[in-house]
């Protein structure tokens, strides 16, 4: 059963459509990463789920209850903000206690001075303190409880923000780029911690990020949003290997996927340069198409007798791998390959090379961006070469 479901959420600001009918279902204990370039509406969607913003249309159902008109406080969702949004005048312990105090103490019991005299509150306050301490211990911030946010480092503040969100056992957990203010080392470390915490709490989580490696490494499913539309929602491996849209393929993957424009001819074969690929299971028709090949499936070899000839333009050494930029002789398009450093040693700048592409890794897209599916692609180039 889905714990959180969004149905055709729309939102526009001053005539600009920010969300164009986004639908999404999250199951019990699922971790969904919402990823997309800045301005794609992912944060807006999160705010709408939290109740901080109202959608123009669509339904939000949390735990079987339609909450579109329910105030943020009564939705039982917790959120971790990019800026952490800790109360600067309260200590870490007081920050974590706020959501509990707001829920468990009555307005009269929270009232300054007078509240402390009312019956029953002492017991509740002690209980809250205990819970705060437990939460802090599990996040290893119990030594920070008496410090104010100003006296803490970014990583510590981030943990306090997590603790404040988790302490009240929300039914949905929302995170808005919680790691983007941390330095690179800490970020990778914090990723693992958040995943671990999520496993323990098993609360469905919507995690907004613009960092694809965060999305792919942390989430059970990744939702790619571009221009206010949710283009694909799938497990990380699937969304990477089998993107439904050219924009998804472009957004995920570092370096970016190679996209080459070409045409499919009446016989259903696609050619660029001297390379011909036969597209099967598709009604043959003359139409322009886009070919996508991820850089790791492009092989460059220092031979001059290949079918696709290119010239190395530039290499980027990244330690465990080398990114090689080459330009195809025939059509003048750039192509990027990811190669092992050993192979890269033979590829110097300006060198003429042969390009080989793994045929079953080639993806075809319509010019509108949709994936042309159910196609296996066979190489017809050998034949071509024999004739030539």
């Amino acid at each position, binding site marked *: 059963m889905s714990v959180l479901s969004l149905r055709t959420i729309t939102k526009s600001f001053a005539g600009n459509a920010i969300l164009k009918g986004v639908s999404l279902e999250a199951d019990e204990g699922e971790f969904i990463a919402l990823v997309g370039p800045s301005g794609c509406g992912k944060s807006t969607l999160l705010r709408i789920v939290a109740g901080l913003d109202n959608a123009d249309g669509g339904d939000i159902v949390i735990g079987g209850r339609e909450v579109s008109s329910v105030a*943020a*406080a009564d939705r039982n969702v917790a959120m971790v903000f990019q800026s952490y*949004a800790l*109360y600067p005048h309260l200590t870490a312990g007081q920050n974590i206690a706020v959501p509990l105090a707001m829920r468990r103490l009555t307005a009269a019991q929270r009232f300054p001075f007078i509240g402390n005299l009312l019956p029953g509150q002492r017991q509740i306050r002690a209980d809250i303190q205990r819970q705060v301490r437990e939460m802090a211990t599990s996040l290893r911030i119990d030594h920070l409880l008496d410090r104010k946010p100003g006296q803490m480092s970014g990583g510590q503040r981030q943990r306090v923000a997590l603790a404040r969100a988790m302490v009240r056992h929300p039914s949905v957990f929302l995170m808005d780029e919680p790691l983007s203010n941390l330095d690179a080392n800490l970020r990778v470390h914090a990723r693992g911690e958040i995943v671990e915490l999520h496993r323990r709490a098993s609360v469905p989580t919507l995690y907004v990020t613009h960092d694809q490696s965060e999305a792919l490494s942390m989430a059970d499913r990744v939702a790619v949003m571009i221009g206010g539309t949710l283009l694909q929602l799938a497990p990380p491996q699937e969304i990477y290997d089998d993107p439904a849209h050219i924009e998804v393929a472009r957004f995920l993957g570092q370096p970016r996927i190679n996209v080459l424009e070409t045409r499919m001819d009446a016989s259903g074969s696609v050619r660029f340069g001297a390379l011909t690929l036969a597209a099967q299971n598709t009604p043959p028709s003359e139409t322009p198409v886009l070919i996508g090949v991820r850089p790791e499936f492009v092989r460059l070899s220092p031979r001059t007798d290949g079918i696709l000839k290119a010239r190395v333009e530039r290499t980027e050494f990244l330690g465990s791998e080398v990114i090689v930029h080459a330009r195809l002789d025939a059509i003048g398009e750039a192509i990027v390959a990811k190669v092992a450093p050993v192979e890269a040693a033979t590829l110097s700048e300006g060198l003429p090379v042969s390009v080989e592409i793994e045929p079953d890794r080639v993806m075809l897209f319509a010019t509108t961006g949709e994936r042309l599916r159910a196609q296996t692609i066979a190489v017809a180039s050998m034949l071509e070469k024999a004739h030539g």
Partner: protein
Amino acid sequence: MTRLSLGRVLRLSLLSLGALIFLAPYLFMISTAGKAQSEIFSSSLALIPEQWSYVENFTKALSRVSMPTLLWNGVVVCALIFIVQVVVAIPCAYAMAKLKFRAARLMMVLVMLGLLVPIHATALPLYVAFDRLSVLNSYMALVAPFSISVFAIFLFLQFFRALPDDLIHAARLDGMSETGIVARVVVPNAWPAITAFAIFSVVAHWNDLFWPLVVVTNQEYATPPLGLLYFRAAEAGDDYGALMAATLIITLPLVAAFLIAQKRFVEGITMTGLKG
């Protein structure tokens, strides 16, 4: 090094000169408060009294008018005005800065207009109204016209705009009502703005002579500056030594308060980006 210290000397002497110009009347007041009647009216001008008559003058100042009543009235009026102004202005400024509602623009225009209208313009209608309500000669008449300070709204508005939206959002998600947000999140973080406003408000109303003069004729409700006026009238305006002593007593609380809280005040003013 010499150049630098020369610049420093120049700067310091310029500042000292400025300080001297601004302090001169006050210093002269202190000096006069210690002079005997004959010396004040003599042709020679000396800063240090030939004959110290501080005790005499202060005794006169304290006995002729009820100084404690004046000071107490000053404290009550300033405190009431300040508290009411803050209680009214903070929720108003919060709403204008952080909530979306249709009349927000109109309210902003009204606040701006309010800033342009001086008390003197509305003094007469207010006086007539208070007279009809028979509340002249009361704390009510002294406090009510100042209860809504557009200046306070404007100052807090600027300050609240700088508060991060996420903080308000977090508070909302944590279950706070809008009143709760104002009381528990906005106010505790607005102390610099509140202190800054406190200076403006308290100084203005402690020193205000115009409005008390309009609505108060009973000495029981006289504020310090009005009390000074009575003192002068009672003394037929010639005992300057005692008058200066009385003035000294009246200005002392503000000077003392400023000196004690100087650091916080300066912090408050610089934090709101306002310059005196």
